[in-house]
């Protein structure tokens, strides 16, 4: 999906390229969701996380090991 947030034509074309069938109701729900969430998702793509050290073999039942 483009960072511009354009719903058309990417979403219908993307679904078609995967062979996923859809109808007008699907598109209406997806468009409303897209307009709600996509700005935040696009913003996420612009953030610089290069200073975050990866957590190798993370165990979510415990606190992370110190860097």
């Amino acid at each position, binding site marked *: 999906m483009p960072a511009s947030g354009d719903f058309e034509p990417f979403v219908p074309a993307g679904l078609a390229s995967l062979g996923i069938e859809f109808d007008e109701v699907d598109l209406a729900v997806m468009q409303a969701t897209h307009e709600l969430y996509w700005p935040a998702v696009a913003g996420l793509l612009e953030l610089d996380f290069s200073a*975050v050290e990866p957590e190798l073999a993370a165990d979510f039942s415990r606190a992370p090991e110190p860097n």
Partner: protein
Amino acid sequence: MSLLDRPLAEQAAALAAGEADGLELLDETLARIEERNEAVNAVVATFPEHSREMLDAAPEGPMRGVPVVIKDEWPLPWRAERFGAAELFTATAPGESGPYRALRDAGAVIVGVANMHEWGSSSTGNASVYGPAHNPWNLERCPGGSSSGPAAAVGSRMVGGAVGADGIGSIRYPAAYCGLTGLKPTFGRSAMQGHHMRGTTMIVSGPLCADAAGCRLLGSALYGEQLPRGEASGLRIGIVRGPIAEDCAPLVASACEDAIEALRDETGGTVQEVEIPGLELSGLAAVLIGTSEGLGDISPSKLNSMSKEIGPINRALVKYRMLMPGSVLARAEVIRTMMRRSLATAFADVDVIAWPSVPAVAPPLEEPLVELPSGTVTVDAVNPRGGGLANLIGIPAVSVPVGFDGGLPIGLQLQGAWGSDALLLDAAEAIERATERRFVDALSPVAGGAGAPT
């Protein structure tokens, strides 16, 4: 007063002391489900013969003879789970799930399967193959999701305790909406075997009960180990600034602030502001990861042959998620790492971090919108911002009833470091003492109560 109106731990104590008979309690529970369930649609299946068999075979466990319900999220030996939906993308079959074994081994009696939001996909509970569950405090309001049925069942006092599941707040939202105590355990500590999403890094089973003592009892069964009771003396309470704490309905914000002060005073503790870098990203990251974990079982051909009975929102969103770029999900995982480190640092200075479980009380079933200082929004857009963090990084959290707004319950969320599950229940009990149990003992109208206490 019927024993069914008493909290779960009191039911267990009465049975253990021989002051109550297990078979009589079971029959009374089934009769009460028959009487009250039509209003709230909390319980979607009962099986008296199997319940009586569980009672007959119940070992001398801490919950011997205590009736409970379990969310439609795990198989039972006599029933496959449906996940609140007409269809799942993975095969299901009857079987001995982890939560079933945990309950059986503790001596509990499963009296029913509880409703849930279709595919566990919403904080509302307003869509299910069984029809929506209703909030026992106001039948036109959402009970919360996705553990809608467990919350509505306990809130109606059909049972004293219910097993729910929490993947992005799905125990804590309904606990808050229905005036209950709901515990989301540390990741991996509670029984999960048999869950159809086998590789989840987000979902845990957990208890919903009227009070913290009930959650300690039922939680201990699910953990397979006793959650010890302490005093939470000198509790160091962390609070945050920003939308999670401040973009809330005014009465929700003030009730939570009052409860935090009461908790501080009751424990002789302190309140301090904590900085959590990246906190505003945690809800989005939780939603991105939580909604993508099941995609490995889905193919275009499965989507194209999906049951027409699946609701229109889930039908569309599962297709939409197939297009989410990998780069986005990779960044969500980076946020997860960042948040785990941020919270590990914060928990060096505080024992718990408190903020409202949800920013407003239960919204209407028909149109689940809430009015916040930032505007009118759908609850699924704002609830994960405070509810997603615990799932994202694995920490335990509890929602505690702390007030009412317009006759509907308000919940305060306490989150602690990994493994501090028992401490959270100690803190919840401290709030109960400080508020003289008037919120945990309040009975909803469906349960025969007169409405919100003053």
